């Protein structure tokens, strides 16, 4: 008999639902105008009220796209943390209610673990052990993965995340939020001819706060000489900043490979959509004979598909939770979620 899982993700801004059969993603929906058209509503923006409005339509849509009836579900998976309390609560409560009414088990999932296991949504899959650099607006970490459910963080940011470095730079440059994709696009037309310092952070940890400050000082100085400096050099500034952010990330990956001897190298999280990071990783892979892995875009950003993929591993291991489970805003990979 096949295993049918419904997975729910509501840790931050997006409400998402996915349906999986035997670990294969049948549908992976993020609440947007599509999910709401049937209900005649509009999509609210941030946080818990938005999730409350989104969750029923997006679950309906995921089931419908998968061609699955909820009475056939084997279990329900949900993001227990880390994330914003008010947002997590919506997904956790919904999962508990539905599991209770259908009398099926529940599976808790760590959102950061799910980003890593998103690599198992579609082939090619990395083999164990592998390294995964997870980069997003809120996170930057290198994870050593020894088995589907065994992983440890071996490096992480001490201040800002890489995605935040993109967004804050965008703010300084007067670009719209989120600025990551805009900088990516502008950088393609520019040359990385301005140099920003690489922070001197020991081991496999990262820091992006100093980079933000040095960009700020650099622009302040240049604009004193030429008030039009940003406008006249926008593409080159973007290329230079992106070049530095990517090199900070990749240099630490090189160090992580040297230290662990692991040459299966993956990236995950929303920033792994950045074209320079993708190209840089592939180039490094060729030079150093690593096998490199980048998930499809739909599995990079926050999505329930990756929650479902992780839950499938847990289903096979029979790792279920009881109705006493509650959301945990801070939950590090490899620690107990209490």
């Amino acid at each position: 008999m096949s295993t049918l899982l419904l997975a729910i993700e509501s840790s931050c801004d997006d409400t998402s639902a996915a349906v999986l059969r035997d670990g294969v993603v049948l549908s992976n929906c993020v609440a947007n105008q599509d999910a709401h058209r049937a209900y005649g509503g509009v999509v609210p923006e941030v946080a818990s009220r938005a999730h409350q409005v989104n969750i029923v339509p997006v679950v309906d849509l995921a089931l419908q796209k998968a061609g699955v009836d909820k009475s056939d579900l084997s279990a329900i998976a949900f993001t227990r943390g880390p994330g914003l309390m008010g947002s997590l609560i919506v997904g956790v409560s919904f999962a508990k209610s539905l599991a209770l009414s259908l009398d099926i088990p529940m599976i808790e999932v760590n959102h950061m673990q799910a980003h890593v296991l998103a690599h198992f949504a579609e082939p090619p899959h990395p083999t164990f052990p592998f390294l995964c650099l997870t980069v997003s607006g809120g996170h930057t970490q290198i994870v050593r993965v020894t088995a589907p459910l065994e992983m440890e963080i071996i490096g992480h940011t001490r201040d800002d995340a890489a995605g935040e470095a993109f967004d804050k730079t965008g703010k300084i440059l007067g670009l719209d939020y989120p600025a990551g994709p805009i900088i990516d696009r502008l950088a393609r037309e520019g040359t990385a001819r301005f140099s920003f310092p690489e922070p001197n952070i020991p081991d496999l940890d990262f820091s992006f706060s100093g980079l933000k400050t040095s960009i700020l000082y650099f622009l302040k100085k240049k604009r004193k000489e030429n008030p039009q400096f940003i406008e006249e050099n926008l593409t080159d500034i973007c290329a230079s900043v992106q070049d530095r952010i990517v090199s900070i990330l990749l240099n630490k990956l090189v160090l992580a490979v040297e230290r662990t001897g692991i040459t299966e190298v993956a990236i995950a999280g929303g920033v792994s959509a950045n074209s320079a990071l993708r190209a840089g990783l592939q180039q490094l892979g060729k030079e150093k004979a690593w096998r490199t892995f980048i998930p499809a875009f739909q599995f990079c950003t926050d999505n329930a598909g990756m929650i479902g993929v992780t839950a499938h591993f847990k289903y096979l291991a029979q790792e279920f939770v009881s109705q006493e489970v509650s959301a945990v805003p801070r939950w590090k990979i490899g620690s107990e979620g209490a």
Partner: protein
Amino acid sequence: MELIFRDLVDLDRTVVPALLRAAGARRKWMLSGDIGAGKTTLVQALCRHFGVQDYVTSPTFSLVNAYSYPDAEAKEGQALIHHLDLYRLKNLDEAIDIGIEEYLGDPWFCWMEWPELITPLWPEEVFKINLEILEDSSRKILFL
């Protein structure tokens, strides 16, 4: 009151003790200042002062980061700190949606970056801090 500081040593030795003295019983702190002015760096120093063990990272994306530190007077011996950042929120409604009133009304420290968005919700007894980058890249901190 106004202080100028240059580095983390000044921040730890001079600024943090001065702020805590000036704040007195006020636990809701509003941290204003431009990008790069040092708001998160100040919160990192405050957390160091209280003995927070976790890495203190930017809450811009997560909106709220919670930390705990040992406090014999608190229930279960642990007190909480909420580090908020309203940078990416667009209006008061979104702030209410994330439960902002809870963080303003509870007994714990709440250190809030980009708090101007919710001025109408500020409790009466807030501690206001403004950080500014000076020409020589030292920082000026104003508080009242």
